């Protein structure tokens, strides 16, 4: 029997693109097929045995028994392998989606086994096609399963898909409310907003404390006195006041998780008071720890400290007493950073051979003087406009909103991306983390030349997805080359964008963060909820009463976590006709609880 052709017919009818890829792919020698003790074909890729060398058929029931799904459920399995593990699952009645990154493994499987039945009962897709499918899943009834050998082959791919998926399940089932505390001013304000966007797109309820509304007042403090110590004291007092406002707000809205972004006005005392609410308090420090040292004071207070640098910094955090420290790099916000269509006039205004968008740090001011014989446009703030480099600043140091700089990224033939440095005149040879601009330009589909960074090679494929430079001469050479080769720019930009969308969006980051916090602290979160819910949870009340009138009355509030008296009063006021007995009694309760426990009613 020609397994492949028969299998291909079925696959073609269900996933034509996948079928075409499978048909076209060559199977390399590193993928071999042997026969198991039970006589079944078993693949091996390099040194990874993808199924049991003894009885691969027995994987099926064991695999399905992990979750025992039924009709109405959706199970996403990472890894097709040769399909042995999917047989029972495919007969469960649930919808089975199988994500398989390797077309060659699928091909080998289709050549080796009759998979018609299995292919007919599952949706086999490649990772690139998962997003649109994922958008339609009911996460209340969704499950993720890993075929472990497949995960070992493609862990990164698996993580990139599984992360957001799991986070969406958490959002749907646990309905966490997340409070995000943003800074008063500075570059991290956009990070804060992007976190909010991402959390919302994952399905969480988000309360954003946007402290930029206090920016003007904060800066006005400088007008009060010219004596710096006084100014600093006033600013600290103001900041502490804002921290108290955060605590008060948290008490009011009772979040399940609190996320604080770098530069948020939260001093250690305020952090501790937030923790007393029972919600995990998470910090994302998106700064250079060697430049800003306030992390030392706050690290031991946060439950989770995420940062954009690893290695030595993580050790320092542990020494400083941080209970949890984890690496979480910056990202792109695809709701903002994306390809856009520009009008002719906009292309004229924002277009250039070479553009730089960013603040006028000393290293940039000096470094870009080496490009003044080129067609260079600069946008940003804090530039010395009277210098030759400063004369290239198009926007005269005015703030640029994201919607505008996205146009710059889209139209520049080459976007320059030089990480800021206070210590080096140009490229920082010790520079490790990757700035947000790298991801943003890539997500916009723009081509960039970025200075070398320690983490760049693990983040992007150098040469294919990203081009780096190490000094001014290197940069000048690459500018000339890439200006002359638009097709290469386009290809690299496209690959870069694909990489960012696959792995480096705020959705990925927030998913990872929430998954970690939920894995570690889901019980703590539930305990805090239980404590808040206490006895006035609708289900709790219903379980403790056999009063038929009350039960009937509370039916309309089922599904509410908390029996909110204001909701009850609202429902009563919207009712018609004479008050029922439960309504009358709740009116009394509302009056009593809104006074002083009946002292003077």
């Amino acid at each position: 029997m020609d397994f492949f052709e028969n299998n291909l017919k079925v696959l073609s009818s269900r996933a034509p693109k996948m079928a075409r890829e499978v048909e076209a792919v060559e199977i390399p020698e590193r993928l071999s097929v042997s026969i198991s003790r039970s006589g079944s074909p078993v693949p091996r890729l390099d040194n990874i045995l993808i199924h049991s060398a003894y009885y691969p058929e027995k994987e099926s029931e064991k695999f399905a028994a992990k979750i025992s799904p039924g009709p109405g459920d959706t199970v996403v399995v990472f890894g097709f392998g040769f399909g042995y593990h999917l047989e029972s699952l495919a007969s469960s009645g649930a919808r089975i989606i199988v994500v398989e990154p390797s077309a060659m493994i699928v091909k080998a499987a289709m050549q080796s086994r009759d998979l018609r039945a299995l292919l007919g009962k599952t949706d086999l897709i490649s990772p690139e096609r998962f997003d649109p499918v994922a958008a339609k899943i009911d996460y209340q009834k969704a499950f993720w399963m890993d075929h472990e050998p497949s995960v070992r082959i493609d862990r990164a791919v698996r993580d990139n898909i599984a992360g957001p998926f799991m986070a969406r399940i958490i959002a749907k089932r646990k309905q966490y409310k997340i409070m995000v505390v943003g800074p008063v001013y500075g570059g991290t304000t956009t990070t804060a907003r992007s976190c909010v966007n991402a959390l919302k797109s994952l399905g969480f309820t988000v309360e954003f404390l946007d402290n930029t509304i206090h920016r003007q007042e904060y800066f006005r403090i400088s007008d009060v006195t010219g004596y710096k110590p006084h100014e600093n004291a006033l600013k600290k007092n103001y900041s502490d006041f804002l921290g108290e406002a955060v605590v008060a707000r948290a008490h009011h809205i009772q979040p399940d998780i609190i996320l604080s972004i770098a530069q948020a006005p939260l001093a250690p005392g305020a952090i501790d008071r937030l923790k007393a609410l029972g919600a995990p308090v998470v910090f994302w420090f998106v700064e250079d720890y060697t430049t800003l040292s306030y992390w030392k004071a706050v690290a031991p207070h946060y439950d989770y400290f995420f940062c954009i640098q690893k290695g030595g910094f993580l050790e320092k955090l542990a020494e400083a007493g941080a209970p949890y420290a984890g690496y979480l790099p910056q990202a792109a916000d695809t709701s903002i950073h994306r390809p856009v269509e520009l009008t002719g006039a906009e292309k004229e205004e924002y277009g250039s051979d070479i553009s730089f968008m960013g603040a006028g740090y000393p290293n940039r001011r000096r470094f870009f003087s080496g490009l003044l014989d080129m067609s260079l446009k600069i946008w940003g703030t804090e530039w010395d406009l009277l210098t030759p480099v400063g004369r290239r600043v198009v926007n005269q140091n005015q703030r640029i909103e994201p919607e505008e700089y996205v146009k710059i990224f889209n139209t520049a033939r080459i976007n320059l991306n030089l990480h800021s440095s206070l210590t080096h005149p140009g490229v920082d040879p010790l520079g490790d983390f990757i700035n947000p601009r790298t991801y943003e330009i890539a997500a916009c589909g723009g081509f960039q030349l970025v200075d070398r960074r320690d983490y760049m090679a693990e983040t992007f494929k150098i040469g294919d997805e990203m081009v780096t430079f190490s000094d001014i001469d290197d940069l000048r050479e690459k500018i000339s080359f890439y200006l002359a080769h638009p097709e290469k720019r386009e290809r690299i930009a496209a690959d870069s964008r694909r990489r960012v969308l696959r792995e480096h969006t705020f959705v990925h980051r927030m998913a990872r963060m929430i998954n970690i916090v939920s894995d570690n602290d889901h019980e703590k979160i539930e305990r805090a909820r239980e404590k808040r819910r206490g006895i006035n949870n609708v289900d709790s009340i219903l379980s403790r009463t056999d009063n038929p009138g009350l039960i009937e009355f509370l039916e309309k509030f089922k599904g509410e976590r908390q029996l909110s008296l204001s909701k009850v009063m609202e429902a009563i006021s919207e009712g018609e006709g004479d008050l029922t007995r439960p309504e009358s009694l709740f009116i009394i309760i509302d009056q009593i609880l809104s006074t002083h426990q009946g002292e003077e009613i």
Partner: protein
Amino acid sequence: MSSSILVLNLTRMGDLIQMSPLILGLREKEPDCKITMLANVKFAGIVRFMKGVDELITFDVAQFGSCDGSETDALAIYNYLDDLTVKLNARKFDTIINLSHTKVSAMLTKLIGAGDIRGFSSSPRGSLLVRNPWLIYFTAFLNFRRLSRFNLVDLDSLGAGVSSGGKVRLNLAPDNESAQSAQSYFETKGVAPGDLLIGIQAGASREDRRWSPASFAVVADRLAQEKGAKIVLFGAAVEKKLGDEVETAMSEKAINLIGATDLEQLALWIKRINLLITNDTGTMHISAALGTPIVALFFVHARAEETGPYCEGAIVLQADIDCAPCSHQTVCGHLSCLKYITVNDVLTACDMALEQTETAPDDDSLFRRVKVYVSGFGEDGLIDFRPLKRERLDKLELFAYLYRPLFNETFTKWDAPETIATEGIGDWAIDDLKERFIMPDDEKTEAWIGRGVEGARRLLELAQNGERLALEVIEAGDGQSSSQLMEIGGQLTAIDYSISVLSGVYDVAQPLAHVYKRRAENFEGDDPVDLARQALKAHRWLKMSASLFINICGRALEALKNDNKKPDSYEITEGKER
């Protein structure tokens, strides 16, 4: 068979005590009736001392409050309320009297249910319902306080359909056994039988309703030094700090009983002391009930006429300031009124109370910024606060005196307004005015009364129009189309609006306008003809009341013209124009 009456009072101790005439009034009307009182557990102790109550049921939702900040169990409260109302409903009371103007008590009244409900209840759709005119007045009078001369004790009794006519006073009767053992108890506190004991209640329910602790301390020291009095400090445990302030400021020793007495012991002490100096407090009402002489200090939004001690011979000092009484919601930045009453004012009042005289020394420095009242009972049997100083009459006082007999008459005939007398009412009030006040010049009196009459005439006209429209609906019966009904409804609404506007333009017409408005807000039912009948009565009442008002004003004008009597005691001839 004797009737069974449930009396609800879920408010404070002072309010409970002020209900005692009502209880005895009920008992007097029907000696065999069974009176059950539902009272807030926190203040229910005082009910034990109230004669006439057969059974006390405590209302205790405070038990569900948390001390550790944890959540209150809504289901527990629900079950408690459900059980309570089911049990009380099963008792099938003949009458419920609810004089607490709160949603809680109104809802409870509705759920407990009775054939005869007096006071506040709830309509089937949850709106506050009150039918009795005196209680309608109670809900309205805060809009025209300085035109009102009714005390809450009287409003309670009249609202409950029990008018003691002043024959029944506040009453509290501490246990006889307790009274006998009291003397040995006093001796342990260093009080001998003949000692002059003066009590001080320095606290009040609100910080802005009390005289300064330092001033109380000076008064206490002077009484101790000049009269050999022993000073007793009274107050609840929460007032301990305040009491310590007074005690520390005193140079003489005091018997500090703050937070140290239960209600029974407090009653015994109050009965024993020779005089109580107090802010407007529950202790003041206990004193009134037990017959202990009182010097009471009223500030801010407290007003002697409304909540003054319900007894004879109490001296009440009220700061004489334009902004008093202020509203309960007022947040005052200066509290000047607290400084208007001086130490010498209080000491003089104490002398008068101890000597049971109503004559103050002839001293211009006394009572300069203070109104002084002496409590008693008026011609109508209701409590009356007679001004001690004969001062120039102001406009609002004039009409306040005239409104008292008017409402006495018109409320008695609430449901039969066509029987309201339109003359011969209120002569005694006019006599009181002549006796108690220095009349302004004739021109002023004429202007005031002329304006008042003008306002009343316009109200009368509007009421006549309302009457006519209501009759139209009644006479048409079911034969009217909905568009015709809507048309008439619109016109009636316009009349109501005009009445509201009038009350702003003619301030002395406010009592009539507001009482009418509250009555209209308590119409019940949906049937247009029924509503029209209620509207007819309301407009008729307004019409007749306005007519009576015009008549009383006319007689007052005649009587008060050219009548500036020389003072018997002393008068303040300087003073501000009001």
